[in-house]
């Protein structure tokens, strides 16, 4: 269907909201609480617009697109409302961008930039940082929280760890872990889904702190090396160093989700103890060898065993950290080349 946004004709799909259609057409409407994965919340009220023949302002995140709909996002009425909402957030929280980890990828900062809000204009009370650093991997600063609810929805509905919720109400509303425990003492498994969903600097990766500004990094997409699920990762790399790992939102199978290992366990690649060549054990001692030498040795031993005892004398156990494709190749090798069905997977044993 066709809708117009600020006079521009846009294609919208059946079932799309106006906000989704705007994004699909490259039109920016500031918003905070909506995320494709957590769905419509309708609560930040930043994405409001005027719609012809509809009374008052409409939250575009909750407004289904309809054929011929005329949406205005750039009128003074709309901008004034958006400015007030963003200003209220900036004024009642402690949103100091300068040293914030989220600087450059903060959706509140983007909204303020778009609305040309240089500094908070409604600051009538002092706001103190409200930090919980009890968790090993997640830095929590509630004074930067906008209560968008994406983390709460993510924790309960996406990864179903059921740790996060909202406590108290009004201005005192804040995210809580279980019965308001420090994050590190809660039942949180530190999958970091909440961090990935947080639009602001309230939930950030501890390990990334001070490592890089967002614009100094580039993303390298890869597959998580930990298990056979094959989660898609973006490595955020500064120079040669990984400073952050995020899940690829539109990548299967994980749709952005990761576990604690995939998201935070990336230091091993820099370990001094990593093997750099094959090792062959002779007289109880390992010695370095070339790949050719090592593979020839293994192949010859296999051949010898098959000749002496038959192929069923050999069994293979595939590594849980392999990707599906490698596991497939492994069983193919055993069944077709070696000729045995003795093949298993270490995660099953």
């Amino acid at each position, binding site marked *: 269907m066709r809708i117009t946004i600020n006079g521009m004709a846009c294609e919208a799909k059946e079932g799309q909201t106006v906000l989704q259609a705007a994004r699909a057409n490259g039109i920016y409407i500031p918003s905070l609480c909506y995320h494709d994965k957590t769905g419509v919340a309708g*609560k930040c009220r930043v994405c*409001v617009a005027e719609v012809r023949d509809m009374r008052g302002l409409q*939250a575009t995140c909750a407004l289904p697109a309809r054929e011929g709909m005329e949406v205005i996002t750039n009128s003074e009425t709309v901008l004034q409302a958006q400015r*007030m909402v963003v200003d209220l957030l900036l004024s009642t929280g402690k949103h100091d961008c300068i040293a914030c980890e989220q600087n450059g990828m903060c959706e509140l900062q983007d909204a303020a930039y778009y609305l040309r809000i240089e500094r908070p204009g*409604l600051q*009538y009370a002092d706001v103190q940082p409200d930090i919980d650093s009890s968790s090993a991997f997640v830095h929590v600063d509630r004074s930067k929280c906008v209560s968008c609810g994406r983390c709460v929805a993510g924790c*309960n509905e996406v990864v179903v760890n059921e740790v996060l919720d909202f*406590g108290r109400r009004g*201005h005192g509303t804040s995210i809580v872990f279980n019965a308001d425990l420090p994050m590190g003492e809660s039942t949180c498994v530190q999958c970091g889904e909440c961090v990935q969903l947080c639009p602001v600097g309230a939930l950030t990766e501890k390990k990334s702190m001070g490592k890089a500004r967002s614009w100094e990094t580039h993303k390298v997409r890869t597959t998580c090396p930990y298990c056979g699920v094959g989660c898609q990762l973006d490595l955020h790399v500064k120079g040669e160093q990984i400073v952050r790992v995020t899940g690829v939102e539109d990548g299967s199978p994980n749709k952005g989700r990761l576990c604690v290992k995939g998201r935070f366990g990336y230091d091993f690649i820099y370990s001094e103890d990593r093997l750099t060549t094959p090792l062959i054990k002779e007289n109880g001692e390992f010695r370095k060898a070339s790949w050719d030498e090592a593979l020839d040795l293994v192949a010859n031993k296999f051949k010898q065993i098959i000749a002496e005892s038959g192929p069923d004398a050999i069994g293979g156990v595939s590594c849980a950290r392999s990707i599906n494709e490698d596991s497939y190749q492994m069983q193919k090798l055993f069944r077709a080349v070696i000729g045995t069905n003795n093949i298993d997977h270490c995660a099953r044993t």
Partner: protein
Amino acid sequence: MISEQAVREINGLMEKYPRKESALMPILTLVQRDNGNVLTREDLKDVAKLLGVTTGKVYGLATYYTMFNVEKEIGKYHLQVDTNIPATLMGAREILRHLEKVLGVKAGETTKDGLFTLSEVECLASCGTCPTIQVNDRYYENMTTDKVDQLLDSLRKGIMPEKEDGSRFGTVCNVLLKNRGEKNASSLSVAKARGAYQALAKAQGMKPEDILAEVKKAELRGRGGAGFPAGVKWGFLAKDTGKPTYLICNADEGEPGTFKDRQIMEYDPHLLVEGMAITARAIGARQAFIYIRGEFEWIARILEEAVAEAKADGQLPDLDIIVHRGAGSYVCGEETALIESIEGKRGQPRIRPPFPAVAGLYGCPTIVNNVETLSTVPFIIDKGADAFKKWGFENNYGFKLFGISGCVNQPGVYEYPLGVSFQELMEAAGGVKGTLKAAIVGGLSVAVLKAEELKDLTMDYDSCAKHGTALGSGGIMVINEDFSIPELALRTAKFYAHESCGKCVPCREGSHTLVEILKRIVAGSGEAKDIDTILAICSTMRGLTLCPTGEAFSVPIGAMVGKFRNEFEALIRA
């Protein structure tokens, strides 16, 4: 620690509701009662386990509602002084100061001996009988400093005095308050002797669509505040959904200045039960709820008794009514928040559409009506729409309860036809105390009117709209020249900031910011631009929030500042 006895009661509560999660609030109420009026984190964890929900959900709910004391120190007697606008106008601040002095603690503190905790609380729907102190579950109304001293003496001896009935009323229509002066009218026998359940008997001989048609014809507008025609609302019900239809009576009565529904529920509960039974028949509901504000503990018991009596008498052969107590949240008066609350969640409004008539309680078609609206239905069915329309005039038919509080000599609830003049109501309420300065006529959420604007005001939807305000719930708060509007504006803003559910940003942070600005102005440290900032926030707020609460505070505060700007400016210059 939850006792075995309590676990048995909890299991009973879980079975009472269509979905067990709905039992969460009653369960917490029960556990808190058994636990010296406090809830520990351990309790919350245990309840979560019993109910099969997350601990975060239970904690989130318990800290949302003000009546749950999570990890708080609460004395044996919790003295809760209502200081909202009607109370302030009627001397509650003096009562609070007196209590602070004699107990030697500030509001929010507990005496060293652990006997008393003193709290300042929001409107207790006791506006006609302010100053009011709620001690644990019991209201003590029409308080004076002498009566406070007597109360404390008694409590120190371990005796909770009986509740006194000191509320005033008057009626010229004799419908909603016809049993108000009657002794024991809450009992079925007295109510029946005075005509209760005749309309229901008639309705049982009518087709549901004919009941609906009669109510539509009566043009009964909802008495909760929004004034939406009840019959039209019922007509929006989704049909043939294969799901049950629910009827909910909104008895949350939280709008400051409003204390009318309790007159019906406390003194004539069968009128409400009858109205619900007829309505349930009209809309095809077999399960109904009365969502009553948590502070009305004794009224909830009266209602439960009335329902049981009616049931035993065979009046409700195919209807179950559950009386569900809230736990301290103004926003639960909004119908979608109320539904969330019955579902055992934080009382936060939902995005609409879908409207409750399509997807309400448990996602099923649901009708939510106010106590007064439902209690008007028996008259319409018994006497007919035409008889109802003899009162009032087009677009404003019928009788209405007006709660009059503040600076009047005889505060109380008065039943008059719509269209009664403001002046006549003032006379009914014994006249204005002192010099009339202004009045807020539809509950706190509407625009204040100055004395000169009140001269030709009649109390109906149209006249109020013409005067730039709203009839709302019909709660009239009268302000005399002794009171400063900036101080009332600050108290108003504090109420809404306290009650903001926190879900949407403009209401949550806007109400909080207004409090901060008004505090500065009232303290004499405001700047000239602050006044315009308030007005800008109030005007931008309109239509921006998720539910009507944004307008509920931006309209009255905007009006107070706009109409009495000189008083605010005087504070800035001073």
